[in-house]
């Protein structure tokens, strides 16, 4: 029986790759385990091995083909004397790998944004619970854009800031020679050398503390955690050493540092590798917490985080790294921390989301529009300090709000938003605040259970209908 060779996945999140090279020709004999082709993704290169012994009967995907979906048949292996033509049809029993559902708007949003205000002592007033207009920022000025992935945007942000400030350096596991565990730091070692792009041992507590110490003495470290799950090892230094020193020192010395890395669920990596830390860190006075969704967010916010004189927690999402968006090319595109973005205007209900959930919220909004419900989607961008103003102003208009996050419900960001609405929009609400969160369980591995545990667009649609009393 001819056997089909399928395009393999190199990682849990890979959906497609390039077939860079065939190592065997049609008619060549192959042994089981022998390399027959090379494939690559933006993250890695790997050889495809024959699973069986036989003859490479037919190559179905030519070398150099880009964007070959995982599980596409790329070749047929036949036994001696067997004809490829014997093959019935190309009816492949493969599991369709769905692309992560994110609606990336082709153009930058045209929704009307909050006015902004320069406010002195903003941080103190925020700390006291005032609802302040966010810092001003006119994104429409940045007209020159190009398509880039979130991954490239993050890399470019670091490279641009490192070019202008020698005090900025990048440190973490596999950031230099390996080019980043998720290839975010690709090319940085080449450009900046080993003094500024530093591979560390696997020692999160130690290197986080080391970076904090260097920041106290004026350096501006970017610490990459391979994922935020491992950042838990370093929590003491993030909170006790980085966040509190400025206060304990009466303002004498602070800690200009960025801790960044992928946060939240990736795909099928189980409970220990899938967790959202937004509410953990947002709980801490002395930290800023940022969580981008699009490439523009990633670029503009990471630049802001690096320039910020305070410790900034930068929560990325692995599922977003390969997504392309249009993003401004201008080096001065720096999004003020503390300013949300209205991604889509609407009148009937406000949906607040951050990171990967913004895409799901937009998808839900589209579906709702078809059913006659006009949803406004707010991309928080910054978790702390929260842009309370943009949220409250939107609720004043829509009178209904649904908060969406990939984190658990208890004491989550949604709880904070619910409290905010109680305190500042009570009289405007026509329905109780609704929260869409992850199921309150450690994230399961099985594909069906995992999908059940994470918020999906249909959960958002459901919650919106509930607050709109619509069916």
């Amino acid at each position: 029986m001819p056997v089909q060779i399928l395009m393999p996945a190199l990682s849990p999140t890979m959906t497609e790759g390039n077939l860079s090279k065939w190592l065997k020709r049609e008619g060549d004999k192959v042994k089981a385990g022998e390399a027959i082709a090379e494939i690559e993704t933006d993250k890695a290169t790997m050889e495809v091995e024959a699973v069986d012994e036989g003859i490479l009967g037919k190559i179905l995907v030519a070398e150099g083909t880009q964007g070959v979906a995982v599980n596409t048949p790329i070749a047929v292996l036949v036994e001696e004397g067997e004809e490829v033509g014997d093959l019935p049809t190309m009816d492949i029993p493969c599991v369709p790998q769905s692309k992560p559902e994110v609606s990336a708007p082709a153009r930058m949003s045209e929704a009307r944004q909050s006015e902004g205000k320069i406010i002195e002592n903003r941080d103190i007033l925020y700390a006291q619970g005032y609802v302040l207009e966010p810092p001003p920022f006119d994104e429409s000025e940045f007209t020159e854009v190009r398509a880039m992935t979130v991954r490239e945007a993050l890399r470019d942000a670091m490279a641009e800031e490192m070019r202008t400030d020698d005090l900025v350096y990048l440190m973490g596991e596999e950031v230099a020679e390996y080019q980043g565990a998720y290839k975010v730091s690709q090319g940085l070692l080449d450009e900046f050398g080993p003094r500024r792009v530093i591979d560390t041992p696997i020692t999160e507590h130690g290197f986080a503390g080391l970076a904090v110490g260097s920041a106290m003495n004026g350096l501006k470290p970017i610490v990459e955690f391979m994922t935020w799950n491992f950042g838990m090892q370093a929590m003491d230094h993030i909170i006790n050493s980085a966040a509190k020193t400025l206060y304990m020192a009466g303002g004498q010395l602070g800690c200009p540092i960025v801790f960044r890395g992928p946060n939240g669920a990736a795909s099928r990596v189980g409970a220990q590798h899938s967790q959202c830390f937004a509410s953990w860190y947002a709980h801490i006075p002395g930290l800023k917490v940022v969580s981008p969704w699009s490439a523009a967010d990633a670029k503009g916010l990471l630049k802001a985080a690096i320039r910020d004189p305070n410790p900034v927690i930068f929560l990325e999402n692995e599922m977003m790294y390969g997504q392309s968006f249009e993003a401004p090319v201008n080096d001065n595109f720096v999004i003020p921390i503390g300013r949300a973005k209205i991604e889509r205007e609407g009148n009937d209900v406000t949906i607040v989301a951050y990171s990967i959930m913004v895409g799901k919220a937009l998808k839900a909004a589209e579906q709702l529009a078809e059913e006659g419900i006009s949803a406004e989607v707010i991309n928080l961008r910054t978790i702390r300090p929260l842009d309370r103003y943009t949220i409250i102003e939107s609720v004043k208009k829509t009178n209904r709000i649904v908060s969406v996050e990939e984190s658990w419900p208890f004491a989550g960001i949604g709880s904070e938003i619910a409290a905010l609405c109680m305190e500042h929009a009570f009289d405007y609400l026509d329905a109780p605040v609704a929260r869409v969160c992850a199921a309150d369980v450690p994230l399961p591995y099985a594909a069906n259970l995992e999908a059940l545990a994470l918020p999906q667009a249909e959960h958002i649609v459901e919650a919106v209908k509930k607050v709109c009393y619509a069916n």
Partner: protein
Amino acid sequence: MTSSKTKKKPKLRSISNTNPEPSAEEMKKLYREMLLIRRFEEKAGQLYGMGLIGGFCHLYIGQEAVVTGITSVQEKQDTVVTSYRDHAHMLACGMDANGIMAELTGRVTGYSRGKGGSMHMFSREKNFFGGHGIVGAQIPLGTGLAFSNKYKGTDRVCLTYFGDGAANQGQVFESFNMAELWKLPVVYVIENNQYAMGTSLARASAETHLYKRGASFNIPGEEVDGMDVLAVKEAGDRAVKWCRDGKGPIILEMKTYRYRGHSMSDPAKYRTKEEVESYKETRDPIARLMGRMNEAGIAEEDIKSIDNDVKKIVNESAQFAQDSPEPDSDELWTDVLVEMQ
């Protein structure tokens, strides 16, 4: 940062008691520093008893030779970081006694404007980076200060102090590894006062010779009589040079002793009175130096005048602290974040 193969290093070794003959001036200076620490700590103890100092208050009495000896060989731009038992380190760095005492009493004139307290004080000006309340946290921080010194291309060294108890924290070994790997200029000064709160070294450490703790990272270590300021000075001098020459980190284990309780309330059940007394009577660092000063024929009136100076500074600091106001209630909200405009 690249690592290079180590050159020949001094072997791990014990007690180097080669005290060279110090000059009279040098001895007077060391004496003054140690006395200032002792008198300051005694005064802090009194103010604590009067309810003017709150919370934890960890006194350094008995250990004066360690920080005094090391500080005498470091340079102004060298960076320093330590634990919560930090008053002495600040005085030794040249920070103002008034500002320290005012911080202890929670006054606005304190180094942290009353927001840090006994365990959390800093001085950018004197390159003193705290004052850290989490046992062991200062070790990666100090390693990072050394990293920054090297990154900036200076020859500055970081003196990183920690206790025998802290020596068991995992982050110590994480730091040792990186420090040697990247040849960072850091002197790890282990203040082995033989107890971590009520737990003796032997009850907590499988290997009680702490100077050997860097062995598996190729970091040289030395055991030093930490009750002898001249021995400390001599070992410190060598260690600082080692770092300044770009040879990487080094460990000094200071065998020392604290006379007072761990903090102010201490059951004192974990050691005998006799043990404490024997240290005070036979090993006291100030008395030992005094012996050397007498031998060297330093005039009594010179010593008296130092005593008076010190007394004056300490009394003034207590008065200054008590006369200073508490922080304004607005201070509650400031310094959470650096304001960006």
